[in-house]
């Protein structure tokens, strides 16, 4: 098979990156480089086209110059043809699309009634794949319809999609809200559904994955009603447990294809830690600045580069910096563009094309370009900040990956603990299998939501199971609340509401606060209010309470009013020399211990969280220059947790003042939560951390809780309990190797002595 990039481009449209080797030598000498890793080139493993492949598909492949397949593509084809559910896990740009397109097109060639449903996590990905499939449709003589179906599909086009679409490309949200609740309109599709393709499987984890697993349970019911049993083909970026994740999501057994047959060029990976400029406070030079320096050095030498930023804001800042650095030079045609969610689809398509044909030299992107959008391959990837997970990091590094020559990736660390841990332990990053994709489809809140949707879609039999579970008790619960009603041996939906409308797949509750800047007109004129941002419900109380200094896009705003009922915060731009730090009070109570081993436990907890006040802290000096009380509502939930108890006698015998011991345990919780997020492949905000000392209770042992920060839990704390030793070892290394003296945001947080005490507590545990 010819490489994809050459299919799109005529050969020779790109210059050979002759400047790369010279630049590599420079980087290797740089004292800020803390790690370097070389990945040798790989030859492609090619095999003959499967003998059963339909002649029509053969000839289209031939037109595309494809005479052989990569070994993983052929393996996936054979397994799918044998009726198996298949998960393919291979690196970026290894021709994954063909792993599902070939079996699906083969099935349609054999049976023109056959249908397939393709699911992509985002709309942008759908369009990219749609173009490719359209090309297949045009090349094949068979009458064959490919359509995307999402919120943007015009009403009058929808009937055609339902009737004529052999392949329908959509996203899980649309399946959940638009297709399943109207399945009778899709009878043709469901009766003949042969394949369900799930691309970017690794994105279906945490809350989103737990919801989607339930959407698949509903999909299975609907398919059963129409008498079809579709096969699944999933493709994924590297995760540690692709087979398990696919099986948890779909409830079916899977075969795994993990050996990539695609070739790759040699690759040089650098870990870069910006130099420390203030040792006492552990302040390093801005990673954004450093990333810009590195990227512009490549771009100035005419080497195409992609820069990944972790937020939209940083993306925009980097675009501005890089444009200023590059485009003033003698070669103004060298363009740098930004790419992120929020750009219009057309704008995005233009950028993608520009990247493929080399007109655009540099792109700064959020994770939007991390997934399988075809942008050809660039020579260099610069990661401004650690992306948060090993899998995501490899995806981004993979974007620099031409199939010949060489490519370079540079990970520039920020001062966040995750970044500091990774940049100081590149061997951890390199040796570690990527994270596990975790889901908890049986979270009671999620399950209840989807049982409502399921009953709406098809009456629920009294003996019917859902995801293999007997759910009679939950149905009784819904009946008590008037949502459903039993007639004969079936439960029916008895509510005026359309249940899918109130269930967002992306969160347990879709509750956000908007930040409104008052009188945002030019030059302080009394112009209309302007919305400057959104903050989720839980963070709103800590960042948007009255009198808080809210930081947004590097600017400071003073919060005048937090309107909890209307979910609005009214702010005014200010220039203050302090910032605010909310004082939160979290009370965790153990409800039930399910597993326990020495000091380590896993089980259920009750969490009550309240923001009770705030401190004003002066920039640079970190002096506490004031404080205030707040009266905000208590947030309560029941969730699952991992907790660590420190036997009271040992804790009290630590040679520190009582206040230092408390600070030390808090610091340990801070570091543990950060690193647990790395190991569990979740967002830091998905985990909560709290400590209980039980000062008034002499029989209570001080306890450190790390809990799933979602009502009902999303399956993070149990795996954390299992890998606790690994995480605690990493925490110890993080704290030891941190360059600060007393504790800084990169390790235990900025608290005096916390570092020393935290290490002493860890030491106690080892000898306990």
């Amino acid at each position, binding site marked *: 098979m010819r490489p994809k990039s050459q299919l799109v481009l005529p050969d020779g449209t790109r210059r050979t990156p002759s400047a790369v080797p010279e630049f590599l030598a420079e980087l290797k000498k740089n004292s800020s480089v803390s790690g370097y890793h070389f990945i040798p080139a790989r030859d492609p493993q090619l095999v003959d086209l499967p003998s059963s492949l339909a002649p029509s598909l053969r000839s289209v492949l031939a037109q595309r110059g494809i005479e052989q397949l990569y070994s993983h593509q052929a393996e996936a084809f054979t397994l799918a043809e044998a009726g198996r559910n298949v998960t393919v896990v291979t690196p970026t740009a290894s021709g994954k699309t063909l792993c599902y397109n070939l079996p699906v097109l083969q099935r349609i060639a054999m049976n023109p009634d056959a249908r397939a449903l393709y699911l992509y996590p985002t709309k942008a990905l759908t369009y990219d794949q749609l173009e490719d499939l359209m090309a297949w449709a045009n090349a094949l003589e068979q009458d064959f319809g490919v359509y995307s179906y999402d919120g943007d599909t015009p009403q009058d086009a929808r009937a055609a999609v339902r009737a004529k679409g052999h392949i329908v490309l959509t996203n899980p949200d649309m399946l959940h809200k638009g297709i399943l*609740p*109207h*399945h*009778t*309109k899709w*009878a043709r599709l469901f009766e003949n559904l042969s394949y369900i393709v799930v691309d970017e499987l690794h994105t279906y984890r945490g809350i989103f994955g737990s919801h989607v697993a339930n959407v698949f349970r509903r999909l299975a019911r609907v398919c059963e009603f129409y008498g079809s049993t579709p096969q699944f083909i999933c493709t994924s970026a590297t995760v540690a447990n692709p087979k398990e994740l696919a099986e948890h999501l779909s409830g079916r057994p899977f075969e795994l294809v993990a050996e990539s047959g695609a070739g790759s060029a040699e690759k040089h990976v650098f870990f870069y830690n910006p130099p420390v400029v203030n040792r006492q406070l552990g302040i390093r030079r801005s990673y954004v600045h450093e990333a810009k320096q590195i990227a512009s050095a490549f771009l100035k030498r005419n080497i195409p580069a992609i820069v990944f930023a972790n937020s939209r804001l940083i993306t925009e800042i980097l675009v501005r910096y890089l444009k200023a650095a590059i485009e003033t030079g003698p070669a103004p045609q060298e363009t740098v563009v930004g790419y992120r969610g929020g750009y219009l689809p057309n704008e995005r398509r233009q950028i993608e094309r520009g990247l493929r044909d080399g007109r655009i030299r540099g792109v700064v992107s959020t994770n939007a370009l991390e997934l399988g959008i075809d942008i050809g391959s660039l020579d260099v990837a610069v990661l401004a900040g650690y992306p948060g997970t090993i899998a995501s990091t490899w995806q981004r590094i993979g974007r620099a990956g031409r199939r010949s020559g060489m490519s370079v990736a540079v990970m520039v660390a920020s001062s966040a603990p995750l970044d500091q841990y990774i940049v100081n332990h590149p061997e951890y990053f390199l040796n570690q299998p990527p994270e596990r994709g975790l889901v908890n489809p*049986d979270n*009671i809140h999620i*399950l*209840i939501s989807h049982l409502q949707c399921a*009953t*709406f*879609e*098809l*009456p629920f039999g009294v003996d019917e199971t859902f995801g293999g*579970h*007997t*759910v009679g*008790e*939950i149905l009784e*619960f819904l009946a008590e609340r*008037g949502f459903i*009603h039993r*007639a*004969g041996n*079936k439960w*029916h*939906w*008895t*509510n*005026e*509401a*359309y*249940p*899918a*409308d109130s269930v967002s797949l992306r969160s347990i509750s879709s509750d956000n606060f908007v930040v409104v800047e008052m009188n945002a007109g030019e030059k302080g004129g009394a112009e209309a209010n302007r919305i400057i941002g959104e903050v989720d419900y839980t963070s709103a109380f800590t960042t948007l309470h009255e009198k808080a200094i809210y930081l947004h896009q590097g600017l400071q705003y003073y919060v005048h009013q937090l309107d909890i009922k209307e979910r609005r915060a009214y702010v005014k731009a200010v220039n203050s020399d302090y910032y605010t730090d909310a004082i939160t009070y979290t009370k965790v109570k153990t409800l*039930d211990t399910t597993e326990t081993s020495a000091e380590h436990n896993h089980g259920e907890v009750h969490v009550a969280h309240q923001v009770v006040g705030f401190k004003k802290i002066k920039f640079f000096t970190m002096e506490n220059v004031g404080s205030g009380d707040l009266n905000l509502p208590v947030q309560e939930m*029941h969730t699952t947790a991992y907790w660590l108890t420190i036997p009271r006698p040992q804790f009290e015998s630590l040679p520190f003042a009582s206040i230092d011991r408390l600070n030390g345990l808090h610091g340990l919780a801070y570091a543990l939560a950060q690193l647990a997020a790395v190991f569990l492949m979740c967002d830091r905000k998905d985990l909560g951390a709290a400590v209980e000392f039980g000062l008034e209770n002499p029989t209570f042992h001080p306890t450190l809780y790390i809990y799933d920060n979602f009502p*009902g839990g999303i399956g993070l704390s149990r795996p954390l309990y299992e890998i606790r030793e690994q995480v605690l070892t990493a925490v110890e290394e993080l704290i030891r190797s941190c360059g600060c003296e007393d504790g800084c945001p990169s390790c235990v947080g900025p608290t005096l002595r916390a570092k020393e005490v935290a290490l002493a507590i860890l030491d106690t545990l080892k000898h306990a």
Partner: protein
Amino acid sequence: MPDFSKALRQLRPKESPQRQLFHAENPVSSLGSQLAYLKMHSPRHVEDVAAIQGTEETTPLGRHLVVRNTYDSHHYHGNVRLARFSCADLQRFMSVMKSRGNAVSRDSLVFLDTETTGIHGGTGMVPFLVGLGYFEGDDFHMVQYFMRDFDEEPSMLLAIEDLLQRFKMVVTYNGSSFDVPLLETRFTLARLNCPLEEMAHLDLLTGARRLWRQGHGSCRLAALESKIVSFLRGHDIPGGMIPQAYFEFLQGRGSSVMDAVLKHNVHDVLSLAALTICACDRVVREPAALDSPLDLYSLARIMENTSEWKTAIDLYEMALGGELTEAIFLKARENLAVLSRRAGNHSRAVGLCEELMSESTFSMIGHEGAAIHYERVAGDGVHALEIVERALSRLGEGDGTQRWRTSLAARRERLRQKVMQF
């Protein structure tokens, strides 16, 4: 296996609601709380004693309830005698409205309306009551199929399928986006054939909007039945309360409310039939000068798109004889000017154009029509050119003027050439 019982216990509030209603610090404060208290303490099921009128019928798929009523040849619904329904009139109405389908005979028509458990659509929305009305001779029969619980739906659908066999066309109000797809979904779910798929369908809402929206605003059936049919319902359950009424009925409460729902549905079907007659009247009967000018205008607009466009001229003339709003007054004269020119009545056409040009609102059609008249009919190119110049100078910078500007500029260019030649 996860322990759902335990998880559910966490979700159940600690119960004892009755006791908490009247706290010392919360004396009988609002009417709402008093009502809540009374509801909680009044014995339930009292109003249930009376069962719904109707007969239970049996099909191979089970049982359901049927309520039948007949309205004889003298029955008036509002001011409309149902028996005067004419199939020929309907045929003419449909051809004027360019509706598909063929009204074969009065007996092959069925009027349909459903009452449902919601309005949001989707497979979880159920028509628990389906009302069908049809003629047999001069009698109008009303049959209502009612499912007393969800397990009666298949039987109800089978009975409906059976009855619908004898009809060729269904008439609904907003059925193309609501009742028909809904019933198709129900038949699919029950694995039955939907007879509606083979029938012609007339959705009266479309025609009603064209006939009456200008003159009467809202075209909801309830609005038109009082304005056009002069039928007054008296006490009626509001449509929005119907789903909840059914859910309460399912809980064993409120069969009297269900009677109100059945009555509501009867009225909907009778009004639909009566309104169909009124709609046919509009296109069949001679328009009267006393008709609302806005209705005349609406009818004119319908007629000008048919082969009988000359009728539209008379209708516009009649409409202009009455009071019209400013925008409609302008639009009516514009349309009439174009039609008059097409009919060869040049003096009327140019007269209207001159009038339109003197209006403070710019009329493209007025200017264009006058220019065409002076150029082609009067042979006065110079005057035509003047009119075009005037039009161009009056044209503002608004949206949509660009097309006019281009077209006027082209006309000016052509006229200049022509005038120069002389």
